[in-house]
């Protein structure tokens, strides 16, 4: 046996005997403008599975980055086996045996699976790489874990889920003693998730300390021995799994009643704005639905269920392969985002950084990007109108920024999201599509965004809201459609089904 067991064996004795393997003492991280992690004190026991839960933006990723030496801390101490440590570089973290498996795979897609597993620790003889030996050994490790992944193929030829498993195998075989998982199952199939859990249990048995970060309560209760809760950058508590329940955890995570966050005004729905009839395209098939003025249509499903593909097709990013789109009762042919925008559709896309914002350009330019044809009627941009349009948005949306000349990248996630949304408010659309509008947004900003929805609805607009966070669509949508594997599998009116039912439909039990 090579790999996991042999390398980890040597540590078992010492780690089991010792108390905490890693302690945080008043650990704190500030960025300009945000307090990402308020002073946190916490001890991780050697060999335990410790879950960390919290909403998006609660400070989980900040904590991971601090523990893996990616960012420097503002103050506080990290104590590794009783000794304070700098942990100022990733290298240092790895040398101690701290590793992380990230939600997004951070490996080299063009290299083979084996090359990735040995990246930085290549096998050499006389300075030359031993390709075949590495492939052989990697294959033994993968087979031993039951992953059914060939070691000689390029990493990029695998599914995202398989890549995630490779990343996990890599992290597990490097003499790791403290392994952090960041939402590892987000892109995994159920089968892959089961394989991952088996690996985690095995690592636990070998005395590796596991930090497991997830939104998914059922995973936390299945795996963890203890759970810590983060909220708005504050570590609000740690519980033994046997002494807590889902309701308590959720209560600690949000600390306010759902009604307070999910502000919903009811409007009488008006005329139908958009209708999709048996629409098929890349990633979804045979989807029919209508959106009326004054209502929120929610789309729920797991990541990759085809919701984003469906709405980006409505927005003209890809052409539908079959079916029809009707706008205010008339069949329309939307061939580009420009066509969609001209009709009156606005899209706040899923990924702010990749699709929504020009990060290295000023806030004002980002806010006005969709309306420059109006700001430049004479051919030249009216500087005063440009300024006043941007200032109005900044004030109305209460965007926290140094001014319209500040770069979009200097803003916090929530304020960036306000820009993505604000861009379309000044444009004045009739149908607003929000794809995961509150990912990485703090609770306060969330509430503001929801209030904004109400304002839009009262002006006679319709909203399509995509969210992977069930309570959000559940509490806000007048009509909720559930997607699974590219198909619309169920539809419910406001609060007419239970969370369990809807989740079951999305997963496909």
């Amino acid at each position, binding site marked *: 046996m090579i790999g996991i067991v042999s390398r980890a064996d040597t540590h078992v004795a010492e780690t089991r005997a010792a108390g905490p393997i890693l302690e945080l003492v008043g650990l704190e991280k500030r960025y*300009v403008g*945000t*307090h990402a992690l308020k002073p946190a004190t916490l001890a991780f026991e050697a060999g335990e599975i410790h879950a960390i839960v919290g909403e998006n933006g609660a400070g989980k990723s900040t904590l991971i980055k601090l523990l893996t030496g990616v960012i420097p801390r503002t103050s506080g101490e990290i104590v590794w086996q009783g000794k304070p440590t700098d942990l100022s570089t990733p290298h240092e973290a790895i040398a101690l045996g701290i590793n992380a498996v990230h939600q997004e795979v951070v490996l080299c897609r063009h290299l083979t699976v084996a090359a990735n597993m040995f990246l930085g620790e290549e096998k050499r003889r006389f300075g030359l790489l031993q390709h075949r030996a590495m492939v052989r050994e990697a294959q033994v490790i993968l087979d031993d874990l039951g992953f059914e992944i060939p070691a000689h193929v390029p990493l990029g030829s695998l599914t995202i889920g398989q890549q995630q498993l490779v990343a996990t195998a890599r992290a597990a075989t490097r003499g790791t003693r403290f392994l952090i998982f960041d939402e590892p199952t987000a892109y995994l199939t159920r089968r892959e998730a089961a394989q991952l859990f088996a690996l985690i249990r095995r690592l636990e048995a070998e005395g590796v300390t596991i930090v497991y970060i997830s939104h998914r309560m059922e995973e936390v209760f299945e795996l963890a021995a203890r759970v810590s809760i983060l909220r708005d950058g504050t570590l609000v508590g740690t519980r033994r799994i046997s002494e807590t329940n889902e309701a308590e955890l959720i209560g600690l995570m949000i600390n306010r009643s759902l009604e307070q966050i999910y502000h919903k005004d009811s409007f009488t729905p008006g005329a139908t704005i958009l209708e999709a009839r048996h629409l098929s395209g890349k990633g979804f098939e045979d989807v029919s639905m209508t959106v009326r003025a004054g209502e929120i249509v929610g789309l729920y499903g797991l990541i990759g269920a085809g919701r984003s593909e469906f709405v980006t097709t409505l927005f003209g990013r890809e052409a539908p392969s079959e079916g029809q789109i009707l706008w205010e009762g008339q069949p329309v042919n939307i061939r580009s985002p420009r066509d969609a925008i001209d009709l009156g559709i606005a*899209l706040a896309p899923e990924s702010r950084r990749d699709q929504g914002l*020009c990060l290295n350009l000023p806030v004002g330019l980002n806010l006005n990007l969709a309306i420059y044809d109006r700001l430049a009627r004479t051919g030249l941009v009216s500087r005063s109108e440009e300024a006043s349009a941007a200032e109005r948005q900044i004030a109305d949306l209460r965007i926290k920024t140094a001014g319209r000349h*500040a770069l979009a990248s*200097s803003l916090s996630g929530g304020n960036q999201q306000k820009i993505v949304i604000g861009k379309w408010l000044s444009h004045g659309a009739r149908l607003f599509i929000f794809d995961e509008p509150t990912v990485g947004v703090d609770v306060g900003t969330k509430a503001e965004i929801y209030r904004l929805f109400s304002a839009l609805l009262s002006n006679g607009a319709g909203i399509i809201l995509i969210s992977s966070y069930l309570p959000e669509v559940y509490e806000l949508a007048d009509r909720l459609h559930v997607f699974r594997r590219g198909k619309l599998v169920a539809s419910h009116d406001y609060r007419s089904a239970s969370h369990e039912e809807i989740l079951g439909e999305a997963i496909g039990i």
Partner: protein
Amino acid sequence: MSESEEIKKAALSRGRFNMLFGLTLLGLLLLLWVALGFATTSFWSANNISNLLRQGAMIAILAIGQTFVIITGGIDLSVGAITGFTSVIVALLLQSGLPIWAAVILTLMLGAGIGIFHAFGIVQLGLPPFIITLATLTSLRGIGLLITNGATISITNDTFTEFSRNDFLGIPNLFWMVIVVGLPAWVLLHHSRFGRYLYAVGSNAEAARLSGINVKGIIYLAYTISAVCASFVGLLLAARIGIGNATQAEGWELQAIASSVIGGTSLFGAVGSVHGPLLGAFILATINNGANLMNVNSFWQRIITGVLIIVIVYFDQLRRRGR
């Protein structure tokens, strides 16, 4: 609100730094001029200043066009080749007896055609800008040599050649051409919506597209502007040296890129101006001119240029990182 004050302070200092950088370039140029005035007797002579303005003018115009392309996140390696190639074309057209205005318009249209071809390769064929413009760099020189059979075409039209030697209001015509190109370019980049779109495309093409911007159109615009600027320089060069020759303007694309980068343009796109590359081009021209006057070995000029690029871009990086 201490947090928002912190943000404000950070942004303010950045703003000052930005302005400082613009002024630094101008300051550097003026410093060079003053220093050369003391170091040499002939620098401030009318003759030398005219000469300097003429030398800098052509690279400056290339750099302006290049900047449009770089702002979109691309690169145009072909501008030197276009300049050489179009000098041949205009020489041939004049030789065939066409009036100057017709030869000029046809040459500029040809330049536009080359730019459109670049954008076609990038947008429709999906080729990287570096590759498509590298391909035209070598091909255009080849075509130019082929149609002239490697010979130099002399231009006998005196009105055409005199233009480059003459002055207007005491300033060389060639320098006026920088203003003729620079002013509309400045309006386009800083005061029209197309300018805003150029930055947006360079910053995040997908976000721009989802905001309803015709990204492909903007790419066509940028490469066409660059190629037209280059063919315009081809006209000026032909007038200045009185010949058309496809091997002329060798390496000018690198000087244009260097001027643009010295002028604060970011090769990653979305950062750049019109005045920056102008200053950059004249800083380079001044260094060459001064080195000539001081009898510095011309090989040194190349080394100095290289060092300058590293120093200036390094400070620019510091400015960007300091946010």
